[in-house]
């Protein structure tokens, strides 16, 4: 008996975000009109967020294989081999729209969701990171959003008990109505005890675990793909509330039953909750699944089948258990005070059948539900190349010292301590390098192995030239891992863009993905997981293209990792890589000249690799005493960060004659690092560089309590530190 009321009208179809041709595809597939529950199921499975219908064709081009890749994209998280029988499991995911509507809960549940993705695979989370993009500081909502998002990330991660060790924060008017909250989680598992989503075996119990189901975020998945307009504040969709306490219990209970060998397959309930978890388990295992919704633990009364299938209540899991272990598993869940209910079973039908109160609410072909989702080759146009700005055409706006003091206190370059001090970044006792450096370093179990972790992207480069920008995001990530002495292993990506139905936005997407793929290939840095967030626009204005890259690197002995702090006086400062003085799209041009113009710095991937390998070798053999990669703000900003971190200044030679000094100190040429070496070893290093054809130049000596460039006013480290540390707290206190 089918429940086919209400009848499906075109309005209802449109409300579910399905286009007319998509609806036709649906009816062709099932040979009749869907029930309302079925329509809900399709709308969830076929929206952009779950189906990747606009992005799939392009994502397929990314390199996803490598000798250490155990599991690439397609599961809850990517898995790489880190030796000694251990695997690292990681992924990044966005929670952009929910965080704009309710910043605390939106960000908190974003963290909760990504943690679940990692422990669903049998890994214990050991670190979180995030990449945050906010609107202009002067926008009336920005302060509130920053405060709420940061508190929400901390509120969830701190309580759950995972250290949040790194991330990035930026501000730009193009995020005014569409902030980005990208959260990354990293876990460690035994290599041969990874758990997957594919069900196997017929007649196996499908078990619901965790918290009860409420009417949270119904249509959350669709909301995540809907453009915003001005009255979106009014719509106020049901917000999901996170319960990190329940998630911590869920983690412990899941790891315990996995350890006891009870689990055949497991899938967390994320976007489109029960719908996508159940269908995925069946489809991946070539099986049918029947659910009996009368058995689903509910928090609210009279929930309909439609609501249960689409609820995005948090802290829930679906599992297929070994029948003989069912009681043992139940006892463990009861001990942790969590709900446990057998709500269905597997069968050979290859259909997804949902029953509620004696009626069949849905009966759909399980594989086609996902596989037949529309797939688009959307038209795209690549943006015109922007002119290369000659440094000679950029008039210096201030003296070098004044420019540095100005830059170091800008929203994007200032210290983010106010943010990361709200995150417990030391719990676990394994945080070797805390936030504030190029990459965080976390000891793996009792060591000596360490993982290096970072998130990176430079959206203004991506906007100016998507292909170079995509390359640069990966290269900077690779460089940050290298700068702490780690060997970069793999990345997760989180691709945030505007409306893909606009060819120019699709052009940005395609360009960035091509750039990412190119860089990953050359740097042997495969993509093992990721997430796409489209439709980030308000009133037709899109965010800056923001493909966040989360990178993981391995260092065999964490004690050898380098930090950026100058260590002692009298050491030689070496600049690695070529400096042409590239000012196009630089922070100097934007912050001092108010110009967001020109072509971004090109990325020579071969040079990246050679320079990086050279620096890493110097770190690992103990020659380099500090190391820092060059990125936003260029050479002098990097030197200032090294001096502030170490409390040691530097005497610096003046800029070479052939480069305007502001371009030399603030240009953003890629593939560069600053390292220090004991004075006595400098010559040998320069010789080694020549042999390896790596450009290295001696630019000065550490010492004193200022940055003293010959011919310029000396810049006091203490004053710099006040400026760098001052902006964000003052802004958040409403003083700016």
């Amino acid at each position, binding site marked *: 008996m089918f429940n086919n009321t209400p009848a499906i009208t075109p309005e209802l179809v449109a409300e579910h975000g399905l286009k007319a041709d998509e609806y036709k595809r649906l009816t062709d597939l099932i040979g009749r009109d869907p029930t309302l529950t079925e329509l809900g199921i399709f709308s969830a499975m076929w929206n952009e967020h779950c189906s990747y219908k606009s992005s799939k064709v392009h994502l397929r081009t990314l390199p996803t294989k490598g000798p250490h890749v155990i599991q690439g994209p397609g599961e809850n998280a990517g898995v790489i081999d880190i030796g000694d029988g251990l695997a690292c499991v990681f992924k990044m995911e966005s929670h952009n729209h929910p965080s704009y509507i309710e910043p605390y809960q939106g960000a908190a549940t974003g963290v909760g969701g990504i943690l679940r993705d990692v422990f669903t695979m049998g890994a214990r989370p050991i670190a979180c990171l995030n990449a945050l993009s906010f609107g202009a500081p002067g926008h009336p909502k920005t302060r509130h959003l920053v405060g709420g998002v940061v508190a929400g990330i901390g509120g969830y991660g701190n*309580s759950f*008990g995972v250290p949040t060790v790194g991330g990035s924060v930026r501000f730009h008017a193009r995020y005014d109505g569409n902030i980005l909250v990208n959260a990354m989680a990293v876990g460690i598992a035994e290599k041969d005890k990874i758990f997957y989503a594919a069900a196997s075996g017929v007649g196996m119990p499908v078990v619901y675990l965790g918290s009860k189901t409420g009417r949270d975020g119904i249509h959350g998945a669709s909301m995540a793909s809907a453009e915003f307009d001005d009255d979106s504040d009014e719509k106020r969709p049901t917000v999901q509330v996170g319960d990190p*306490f329940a998630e911590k*219990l869920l983690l412990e209970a899941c790891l315990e039953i996995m350890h006891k060998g009870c689990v055949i397959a497991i899938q967390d309930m994320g976007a489109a909750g029960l719908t996508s978890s159940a269908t995925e388990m069946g489809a991946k295992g070539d099986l049918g699944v029947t659910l009996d919704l009368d058995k689903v633990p509910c928090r609210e009364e009279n929930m309909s089948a439609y609501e249960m299938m689409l609820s995005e209540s948090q802290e829930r899991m679906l599992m297929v258990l070994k029948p003989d272990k069912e009681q043992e598993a139940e006892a463990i869940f009861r001990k942790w*005070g969590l709900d446990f209910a057998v709500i269905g079973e597997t069968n050979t039908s290859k259909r997804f059948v949902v029953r509620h109160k004696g009626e069949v609410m849905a009966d759909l072909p399980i594989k086609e539900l996902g596989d037949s989702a529309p797939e688009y080759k959307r038209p795209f146009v690549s943006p015109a190349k922007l002119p290369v700005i000659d440094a000679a055409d950029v008039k210096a706006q201030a003296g070098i010292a004044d420019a540095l003091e100005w830059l170091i206190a800008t929203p994007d370059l200032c210290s983010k301590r106010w943010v990361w*001090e709200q*995150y417990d970044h*030391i719990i*676990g006792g394994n945080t070797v390098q805390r936030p504030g450096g190029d990459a965080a370093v976390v000891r793996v179990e009792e060591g000596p192995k360490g993982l290096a972790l970072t998130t990176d992207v430079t959206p203004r480069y991506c906007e100016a030239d998507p292909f170079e920008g995509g390359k640069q995001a990966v290269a900077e990530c690779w460089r940050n891992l290298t700068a702490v002495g780690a060997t970069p292993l793999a990345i997760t990506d989180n691709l945030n863009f505007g409306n893909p139905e606009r060819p120019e936005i699709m052009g940005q997407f395609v360009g960035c993905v091509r750039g990412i793929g190119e860089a990953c290939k050359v740097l042997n840095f495969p993509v093992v997981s990721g997430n796409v967030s489209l439709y980030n626009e308000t009133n037709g204005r899109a965010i800056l293209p923001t493909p966040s890259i989360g990178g993981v690197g391995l260092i065999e002995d964490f004690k050898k990792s380098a930090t950026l702090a100058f260590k002692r006086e009298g050491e030689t400062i070496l600049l690695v890589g070529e400096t042409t003085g590239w000012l196009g799209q630089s922070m100097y041009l934007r912050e001092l000249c108010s110009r967001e113009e020109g072509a971004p710095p090109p990325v020579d991937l071969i040079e990246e690799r050679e320079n990086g390998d050279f620096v890493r070798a110097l770190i690992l053999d103990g020659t380099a005493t500090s190391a820092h990669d060059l990125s936003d703000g260029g050479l002098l900003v990097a030197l200032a960060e090294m001096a502030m971190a170490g409390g040691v200044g530097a005497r610096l030679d003046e800029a070479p004659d052939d480069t305007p000094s502001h371009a030399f100190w603030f240009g953003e040429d890629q593939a560069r690092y600053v390292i220090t070496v004991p004075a006595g070893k400098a010559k040998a290093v320069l010789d080694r560089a020549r042999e390896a054809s790596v450009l290295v130049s001696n630019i000065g000596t550490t010492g004193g309590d200022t940055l003293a460039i010959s011919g310029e006013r000396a810049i006091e480290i203490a004053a710099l530190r006040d400026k760098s540390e001052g902006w964000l707290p003052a802004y958040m206190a409403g003083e700016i």
Partner: protein
Amino acid sequence: MKAAVVVFPGINRERDMARTLKLVSGHEPAMVWHAETALPAGTDLVVIPGGFSYGDYLRCGAIAARAPIMDAVRAHAAKGGLTLGVCNGFQILCEAGLLPGVLMRNAQLRFICRDVYLKVERSDTPFTRGYNAGQVIRVPVAHGEGNYIADGETIARLEGEGRVLFRYSSPDGMIDPNWNHNGAINAIAGILSDKSNVLGMMPHPENHVETVIGLTDGRGLFAGMVEHLAKAA
């Protein structure tokens, strides 16, 4: 040293604590689940570690303080047994009535994770014999509700009886509001029970015990307890 680490649902620094106890004393502590009603026989140190027991819901430590195991903890403390509560553990001990006062929201209303400086007020206690009186140590904090408050009479008694064991200070030991990150009365970071056998403190000495990870200033607390127990035996 026979240590027992009490674990409540939502506690999350129990592994850090157990690892440190093992590292310093050479002995693996017993992990005791909140639903138990007795401590392992021969327990000479009970530790309630940090975390978010019951999600910090209602009041930090309130629900945990009423768990079955707490009667056993109370009995252990009443007999003079060493009892240490760190962070959420401190909050639980206060809620359980084993220590006076309460820990309120940090004055800035934000969670704060950073290294702080603590002035060790006395070295003649079972917990601080590894330090000198007046010594300043550097250890991390990670809490949103560490702002110690009690009524005037209680504060006067704590101060009068020398039961304030740790205070937030500047690196050179000055008590200064700029270095009191959570606003605690008299910069109180840790207090003793009237018999000096129960210590509650907000900072995490257990996270600063390995040179390879950072500093080792927290080690003295654990080494001191080991020494005290060895002497007592």
